[in-house]
């Protein structure tokens, strides 16, 4: 049998191509299987905050703390409400648990509501106020969570329905995720000694209930919904109305949408 150099090279090339092709390439997948492989479940939990409706009562923060066994008095909380007062001379008064013009008299993330018109102990004449409003904040359950990427032990992860959770049995408490979150949503749990964060009340939403904060809010300033369900009222608002997210520039694809954000809100 004769074999020219050219034929030999040709055949070698063909054979190597054929062997490199796995059998699975010839398998026909049903659309359902493709959907499962590409990670496209029927649920994607999202949150909608209407800052126009929030009155700063803080009942959401209280409910969250009691529902999720977050220590009540230490300055840690999964969600909080910020008060913004912007004066006509351009000066800004911001109360947050994490800084700004932090008001020592009303700490704990607005847990006890805003029951005093004084800010930083100062009386502010109403005629000087240009804007005053409240902004509830909670974990953004990002599509590309920075906190998950930095975990060295795989103790934090995003579920398929889009909620970022912490495995309390596996977390070593190194605190990388607390540093990585651009929103400062994570903190160190003083009792369990692990990283702690908002779970969108995973134990409630998976039973068909609303989160504790959504249920506690009398003004429907907070809403939770399923982005994959086109008939969900929250989805309809996110798709059809003007909403924005916090710190879009970090590229983490946050999934807490806001109505009526101001440029002073960071």
């Amino acid at each position, binding site marked *: 049998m004769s074999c020219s150099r050219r034929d030999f090279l040709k055949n070698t090339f063909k054979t190597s191509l054929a062997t490199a092709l796995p059998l699975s390439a010839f398998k026909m997948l049903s659309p359902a299987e493709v*959907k*499962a*492989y*590409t*990670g*496209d*479940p029927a649920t994607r939990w999202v949150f909608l905050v209407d800052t*126009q*409706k*929030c*009155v*700063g*009562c*803080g*009942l959401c923060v*209280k*409910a969250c703390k*009691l*529902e*999720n066994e977050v220590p009540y008095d230490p300055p840690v909380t999964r969600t909080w409400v910020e008060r913004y*007062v912007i004066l006509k001379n351009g000066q800004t008064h911001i109360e947050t648990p994490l800084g700004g013009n932090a008001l020592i008299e009303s700490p704990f993330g607005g847990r006890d*509501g*805003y*029951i*005093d*018109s004084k800010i930083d102990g100062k009386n502010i004449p*109403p005629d000087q*106020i*240009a*804007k*005053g*409003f*409240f902004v509830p904040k909670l974990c953004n359950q990002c599509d*590309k*969570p920075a906190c*998950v*990427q930095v975990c060295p032990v*795989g*103790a934090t*992860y*995003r*579920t*398929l329905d889009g909620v970022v*959770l912490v*495995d*309390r*049995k*596996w977390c070593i408490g190194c605190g990388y995720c607390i540093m990585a979150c651009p929103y400062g949503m994570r903190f160190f749990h003083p009792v369990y000694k692990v990283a702690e964060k908002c*779970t969108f009340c*995973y*134990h*409630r939403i*998976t*039973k068909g*209930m609303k989160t*504790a904060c959504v*249920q*506690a809010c*009398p*003004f429907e300033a907070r809403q939770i919904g399923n982005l994959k369900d086109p008939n969900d009222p929250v989805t309809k608002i996110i798709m059809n109305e003007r909403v924005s997210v916090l710190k879009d520039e970090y590229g983490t694809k946050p999934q807490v949408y806001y109505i009526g954000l101001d440029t002073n809100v960071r």
Partner: protein
Amino acid sequence: MKNHVLRPLWVVLAGIALLLIVRHFMVPKDFGVEEGGNFTYNYHRLASTDDWKEFKVKYRGLEYCRECHEENVESILASPHAIIQCENCHGPAIDHPDDPEVLVIDTSRAQCLRCHTYLPYPTSQRSELPGINPQEHNPGEECVDCHNPHNPDLENM
């Protein structure tokens, strides 16, 4: 090959073997990704998701309260306070009436002031709520001494 070359090699191989053995016993069997998940964000101990699902629900909601306290639920639903959940003032039901047997009602002035301190904020719904100045409106008194939270209408005081 010379012995002095092989010896450190065995040490390295033994180290790797030891690491794999330790890893085999230390890492939980169900570590991995769910079907459709990816290793970037979904790699975890799979049982952890169930741990979170089994977390205890404490705020049971109005329908749970209605099972026994129909009258009180109806009275609040007929009032402007209908939007307020029972447990916001009565505290989380948890397993009431078994545990806790009695719920402690928050009747404090501070509880009412959460919404009813008047704040002059033109761009917030807060300024549209009926509000008082707590320094001028009967300071030191409890609101519930005069106002009924289940029927806060001022004409029925």
